[in-house]
């Protein structure tokens, strides 16, 4: 998903200009891509303050290290990689230094704190359940799903961004979706009478039911490689 302004300079041109001393070039590059970079960080971390810090740290790093960009990938891929890595680093730091849980126990060290903006009113409940299920995923699976299923990046580009094999992205997405599907069944089982939303036919194949979700294996992908 490379964006090249058909009128202005390309992303690569801007980055080169920045390296050559043009003080406006990097700012222009950021303005082009900031919304998508922000969305990836926010949905991976799930906390607006932390996402803002991650984006800022990542862009400062990109600004400083622009000269090291070798052009092996698109500039946007490179920027996304830095932002995603900064986001995952923050999640890992949160895990390494757990915070004191809030009184309502809502804060998890790996999971987003659930402050992502509300969904449109029409599908509010379903969207909320989906966000909860997404937030409960291991960070690597969540990052893959954010890139592919939410932001719409091709699997190959998501693999480049996360620096893993295409098969690994497929596996992370597949397992993450499966976890979410199971979680949706579980959550909906607690919400009796809630009508299914979205794909009605598909929803009928995911009946609510009691029981404890089967624990799935850890975040390690069967096909982790590279």
């Amino acid at each position: 998903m490379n964006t090249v302004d058909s009128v202005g300079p390309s992303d690569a041109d801007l980055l080169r200009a920045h390296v050559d001393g043009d003080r406006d070039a990097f700012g222009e590059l950021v303005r082009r891509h900031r919304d998508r970079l922000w969305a990836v960080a926010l949905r991976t971390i799930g906390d607006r303050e932390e996402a803002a810090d991650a984006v800022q740290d990542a862009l400062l790093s990109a600004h400083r290290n622009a000269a090291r960009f070798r052009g092996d990938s698109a500039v946007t891929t490179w920027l996304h990689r830095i932002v995603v890595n900064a986001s995952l680093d923050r999640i890992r730091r949160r895990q390494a230094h757990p915070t004191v849980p809030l009184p309502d126990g809502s804060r998890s060290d790996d999971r987003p704190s659930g402050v992502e903006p509300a969904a449109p009113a029409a599908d509010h409940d379903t969207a909320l359940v989906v966000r909860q299920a997404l937030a409960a995923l291991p960070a690597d699976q969540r990052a893959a799903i954010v890139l592919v299923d939410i932001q719409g990046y091709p699997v190959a580009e998501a693999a480049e961004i996360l620096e893993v094999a295409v098969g690994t992205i497929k596996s992370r997405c597949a397992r993450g979706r499966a976890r979410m599907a199971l979680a949706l069944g579980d959550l909906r089982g607690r919400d009796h009478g809630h009508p299914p939303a979205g794909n009605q036919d598909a929803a009928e194949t995911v009946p609510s039911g009691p029981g404890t979700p089967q624990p799935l294996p850890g975040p390690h992908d069967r096909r982790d490689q590279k």
Partner: protein
Amino acid sequence: MTGAEFSEVDIDLLADYIGGALEGTPEESAVATLIAENPGWREAYERLGGGVALVRAELGRFEPEPMPSDLAARLDGMFSAPALTLVKGDAAAERPGSRRRWTTPIAIAAGFIAFVGFGADYLSGRNASHDDSASSVAGTSEQAAPAAGTTILSTGTDYTRSTLASGPPQPLAAGDNASASTFGENSVPNQSRTSAKDPALARLTASAALQECFEAIERENAGGPIGVLTADYARFDGVPALIVRFTAENGDWVWATGADCGTPVAGADAIDKVPVR
């Protein structure tokens, strides 16, 4: 569907199959055989496949999420040419009823020229000898008297508790590689000079972040409005720190604040604070 009813099914393997992660592998045909011949696998395949389709549909409905305007403005300030960065302090100074004594227009302009000189070069990763930020700091210190407004310094000095209140160091006379001997008679004693361009303080080179830091100090000091005299991008006990000297109703103070100064979580991120007598 919770997964419990598929106890004999390897859900991850089945998920990989549904998601195409097994394409071209021996496991693909093995799973296909299980689905064809094992009722438990077949039922799990049909139900999980439907659930995954629903999940994908819901994920595809997520609304675009534009960057918040305050963050976008902050990034604009960080990555724009120096002339654009000057606006922030002036705007704050002109705000009706503003209590911010540190934003005297002339002083803030002089201060931010030094700040921008430091910040832009810092962000560009340039060698100070090429475009000497230290000399611009020196020039600014002479233009902006501490009592009249905020002077921004970037000495890289490593302060300690005992040297914190001794006063701001004299402007550097030479380039970035100047030794400690370039400090004047009033320089803080026993300081080892390290690089002023510490990446940990990068966030605070943005004018908006700097102002948030000052506001956090004002809140935590709880001594009424503060007038910031100097802010020095430096270190404290070896840790990157912004050294802020200010006056308030409860006296004159110098605070060593950490790199997270002004963030909602860290507040002023005060490492140490000493009164100036």
